[in-house]
């Protein structure tokens, strides 16, 4: 069934279809309508879940950690400073290997206070160990939420589904709402690998010593470094797992096929624009204009940022003349995080493209098609003249 609704409602509907059992969230712009919609679903009985109101985002994640440790399907959502307020618990959730799913409506971080969109909030959490999926439109939001629950419970790693605040969270777009029965068969009831079980009492994540040691039953228990190594290996393997889940989703619902990166007119391109989120769809308009003028250019959206899909990115960019990376976030004092990651991935590739970095749209600064066109034209006209440092778009100095 197709409906016309906001991105936040698309996310909430995905959570309802996924039959989340415990929801704890603290409202923050621009995520608020998502949590409001979920509380409506719970209040009306449309979603049989425990909705736990909390006094902060730190508590929201703490509740999800407890609920997930008890073996339930847990969900929360936040934005910007709310995400940063739960950072200590973010690391706990991933270290404890809990399959929590969280939506983040991307928003700039204060100070200075801003409520508008950029992606500094989630990009700054790239090293926590959470899986990060980015949606480019409403259909991808609802689909990604459903896939995220299956991915999280398959690999026992929490997943963030991120989408641009306002640009997606508050705009209305038609999208297909999958049938509940189909979602139920795609996403079977949650059977946790480990959970608090009164029949088999135990401690989780108490002080774990630097070295391995025998436990009370004489079995060798891992030390901290072994547990963290296992997390990293599982994250790397999650790239393939997500591709498989996406394939299963496509078979069932007829949508998907771009789990890690989403390419548009890239096959014969000399130049490829790269970015994360809804900007990649905005860039398609610019690419179409340039194609009319015989510039061989395409655009690639990075759909999964952590674990980093380095192979897919190398495949897409190897042999191209130039990759142009647009970012609504910055590793302050260095470069765009995505740009630096892509540069590192390409280091060993045989036919390295030139690579440029543009920073734009911070704190919701409007991104105009003409600005993108000018930037891409400059990059395509003289790819060899750019320095290894970000150029800023639309600065009014």
């Amino acid at each position, binding site marked *: 069934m197709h409906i016309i609704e906001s991105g936040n409602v698309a996310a909430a509907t995905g959570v309802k279809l996924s039959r989340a059992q415990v929801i704890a969230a603290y409202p923050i712009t621009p995520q608020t309508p998502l949590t409001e919609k979920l509380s409506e679903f719970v209040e009306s009985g449309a979603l049989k879940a425990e909705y736990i109101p909390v006094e902060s985002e730190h508590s929201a994640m703490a509740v999800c950690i407890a609920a997930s440790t008890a073996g339930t399907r847990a969900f929360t959502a936040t934005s910007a400073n709310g995400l940063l307020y739960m950072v200590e618990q973010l690391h706990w959730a991933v270290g404890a290997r809990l399959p929590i799913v969280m939506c983040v409506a991307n928003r700039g971080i204060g100070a200075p206070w801003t409520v508008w969109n950029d992606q500094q909030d989630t990009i700054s959490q790239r090293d926590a160990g959470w899986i990060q999926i980015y949606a480019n439109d409403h259909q991808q939001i609802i689909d990604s939420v459903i896939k995220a629950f299956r991915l999280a419970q398959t690999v026992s*790693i929490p997943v963030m589904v991120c989408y641009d605040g306002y640009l997606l969270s508050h705009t209305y777009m038609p999208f297909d709402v999958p049938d509940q029965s189909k979602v139920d068969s795609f996403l079977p009831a949650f059977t946790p690998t480990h959970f608090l079980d009164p029949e088999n009492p135990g401690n989780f994540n*108490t002080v774990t*010593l630097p070295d391995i040691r025998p*436990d*009370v*039953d004489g079995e060798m228990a891992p030390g901290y470094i072994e547990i963290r190594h*296992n997390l990293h290996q599982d994250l790397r393997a999650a790239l393939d797992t997500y591709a498989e889940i996406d394939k299963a989703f496509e078979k069932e619902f007829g949508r998907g096929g771009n789990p890690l990166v989403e390419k548009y007119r890239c096959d014969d391109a000399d130049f490829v624009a790269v970015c994360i989120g809804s900007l990649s769809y905005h860039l398609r308009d610019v690419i179409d204009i340039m194609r009319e003028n015989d510039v061989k250019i395409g655009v690639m959206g990075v759909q999964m940022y952590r674990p980093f899909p380095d192979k897919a990115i190398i495949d897409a960019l190897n042999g191209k003349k130039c990759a142009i990376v647009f970012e609504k976030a910055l590793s302050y004092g260095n470069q765009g995080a995505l740009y630096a990651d892509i540069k590192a991935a390409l280091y060993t590739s045989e036919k390295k493209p030139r690579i440029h970095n543009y920073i734009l749209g911070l704190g919701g600064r409007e991104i105009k098609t003409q600005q993108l066109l000018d930037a891409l034209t400059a990059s395509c006209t003289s790819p060899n003249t750019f320095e290894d440092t970000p150029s800023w778009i639309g600065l009014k100095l």
Partner: protein
Amino acid sequence: MTTRTFCNKISRSKPGPGDGGNTGSWRVLRPVINLEACIPAKRNKKACFHCWLYCPDSVVSKTIPPVINYEYCKGCGICAEECPADAISMVDESTHPVEEK
């Protein structure tokens, strides 16, 4: 499909002696049971066992008499505090030199 078994290394443990590592090496004060005052030892009955119940490291045995496993006893003194017969005293570890293995 991937055959990998995910999440096969987590921090999960059962409560028991040694669960916190070699905690015996932390000990400064050693709990010593005076068997003449200890209720189960004195009455030869399975009774009391407050020391067994309260020990956070599960290193006191539920036997007659109760026996403390000094390999893991960290010397916290909770048993001495809880003992209703005041049968446990905390003795400076320096008067009991650690035996080298």
